């Protein structure tokens, strides 16, 4: 019973924050903004969600404010790169660093604790059972019983795909990402679309953070995103900035990680299971890139 519904359940739950952030990253990528600050925005979402849920008693208000706060935070990148033409990589990394410092500082000043804020009275998101599905053997227990944001992330994938590839907004956004000049001459403001993409990714990262801090667990701890934003960045790349691709990339990573946990149980050293998901992702990248290269014949000296 190596691959059981519990493992799948865990993998799906662990996947959610990464998936939401990666969707945001994919939208930015399509808009021509290289978004490396997912981690920082997610962490801001974590902190805000916990803070607002704690003071208001309403986790959903926490989710809402987390989305708004992360979006506000994403303005650093929007103003920095779009308006002031700064470098997206520098700003993104700076946003990650700033978020760690800022949430740590605020944790101390707001809650008077350091490291972790956890309280049984902190309201989490709660779980939702999917009627009808919950009773299906194997699949049911894995798919049902998640928080509402988990289901939201599943819906967000097709919605984002349709938005990007079928809706006029997506067509324009992709145009902006590829040739901003061309979009501008047709009256589409690249700046406006880039702002929109960055803000949407902020919202998604805020939700990712809220899910991590109020759904996956119910607490805030410093630097609790623990590299998930980076995994999201890699998922954007591996998934070729397409929502479904991002989902598959995230799933691959999530399953590799969940399987790694199991392998620990079978006596593999912790270091091997730590490294496994990254190695699997790397191999997947090689395979997909090699396949793509074979399809596009020579000449393309990237």
């Amino acid at each position, binding site marked *: 019973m190596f691959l059981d519904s519990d493992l799948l359940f865990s993998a799906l739950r662990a996947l959610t924050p990464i998936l939401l952030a990666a969707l945001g990253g*994919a939208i930015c*990528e*399509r808009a021509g903004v*290289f978004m490396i600050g997912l981690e920082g925005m997610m962490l801001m979402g974590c902190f805000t969600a916990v803070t607002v849920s704690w003071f208001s008693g309403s986790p959903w208000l926490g989710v809402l404010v987390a989305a708004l706060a992360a979006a506000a935070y994403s303005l*650093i990148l929007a*103003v*920095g*790169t779009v308006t*002031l*033409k*700064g*470098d*997206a*990589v*520098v*700003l993104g*990394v*700076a*946003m*990650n*660093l*700033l978020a*760690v*410092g*800022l949430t*740590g*500082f605020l944790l*101390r*000043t707001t809650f008077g604790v350091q490291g972790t804020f956890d309280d049984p009275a902190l309201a989490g998101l709660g779980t939702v059972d999917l009627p009808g599905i919950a009773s299906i053997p194997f699949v049911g227990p894995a798919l049902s019983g998640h928080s509402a944001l988990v289901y939201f992330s599943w819906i967000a994938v097709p919605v984002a795909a349709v938005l990007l590839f079928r809706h006029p907004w997506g067509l324009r956004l*992709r145009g902006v*990402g*590829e040739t901003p000049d061309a979009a501008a001459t047709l009256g589409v403001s690249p700046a406006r679309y880039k702002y929109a993409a960055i803000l949407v990714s902020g919202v998604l990262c805020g939700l990712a953070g809220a899910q991590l801090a109020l759904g996956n667990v119910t607490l805030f701890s410093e630097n609790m995103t623990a590299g998930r934003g*980076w995994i999201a960045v*890699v998922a*954007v*790349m591996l*998934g*070729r*900035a*397409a929502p479904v691709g991002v989902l598959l990339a995230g799933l691959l990573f999530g399953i590799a990680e969940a399987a790694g946990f199991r392998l620990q149980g079978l006596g593999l*050293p912790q*270091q*091997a299971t*730590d*490294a496994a998901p*990254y*190695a699997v*992702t*790397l191999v997947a*990248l*090689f395979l997909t*890139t*090699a396949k*793509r*290269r074979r399809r*596009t014949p020579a000449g*393309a*000296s*990237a």
Partner: protein
Amino acid sequence: MATESPNPSPFGRVLRSPVPFSVLGALVVGTLFLLATGSDPVTAYGAVVEGAFGADGIGSTLSSSTAVIGLAVALAIPLRAGLINLGGDGQMVLGGITAAAVGLYAPLPAVLTVPLCLLAGMAAGAAYAALAAVCQNRFGVPLLVTSLLLSYPAVSFASYLARYPLKDPASSLPQTRRLPAGVALPEFGTSTVTLGLVLVAAVAAAFYFVDTRTPAGYEIRMTGLNSRFASYAGIDRPRLTLRLMAVSGAVAGLVGAVGVLAFPFRFTDGSLTASGDTWTGLMAALLASAAPVGTALAALFFAALKVGGLNMERVTEVPSELTDILQAIVIVFLAARFTLKRRRRAASSPESPAQAPTPAVPAAAPEKETA
């Protein structure tokens, strides 16, 4: 655009650059934070400066900056050609664990073991970084991703070695045994500053020299500014990528080895990476567009800020996170190239000429590569 133009008037350039504005802006924001939390900004900032440059602090600043400058230079070297190496952690840690293994097992007198450790650490870092370059050259996977992803297994591998084969049985910490007596870099007086700082400074100087004075440095810069131009002119980009990454990894490995050859003279799992020097170094390099002097200065500044922040926390009650925030704000301002002058410039040049560092961001969308 922070390309170092050949007509040098460094001070004028610094003053006209966004640096003063950014530092000032960060100080203002920091002051707001301090006032909001009921602290005295003068005391706090005074403690930062005293802690970083005072008689007791300067040693700490210099020893901290050994790693930060080293990594900044390591990452700046490929960045000068537009290549982002995100795998500094892995390369440094491999350099460290290799140096530790060599130091423990090399059957040589200490005088010979030390340089051997350094060389072995550099070789390990170089080889591992080169692997990322090969992945890009051979398989077309962007360097940014391969270097990042390769870093994790390297850290895990070193951690494994430190916890099992090279473990110090007497310690509860996951660390290797202590290097034999004498297998250490000489220290300056009673300070924690070691010869490592001199080595790192030498590397930075060599980088400066190559960058400004040699044909190779010129080729690297041109590749960073326009890689198609470079290939057109006959610069072999895959080979350059391989070499730059190898050098970068070697320097990162050197930093790891230097860390192991300094107190407490062993490889402790996690201790090289815990302070996040790789990120700080990367920021310094990115901010300076990988220009050698700017990179080193930015790295020194960040190291000083960190050391000073710790002193501020000891002296006042202000959490040292404040200096992390200050650092990030300086970076944000700098990255956004916030100067008072820039707005006018931006209005008149729609095609931003500020693309100096050209961080080759990989195209994720498949279609983008058809060109």
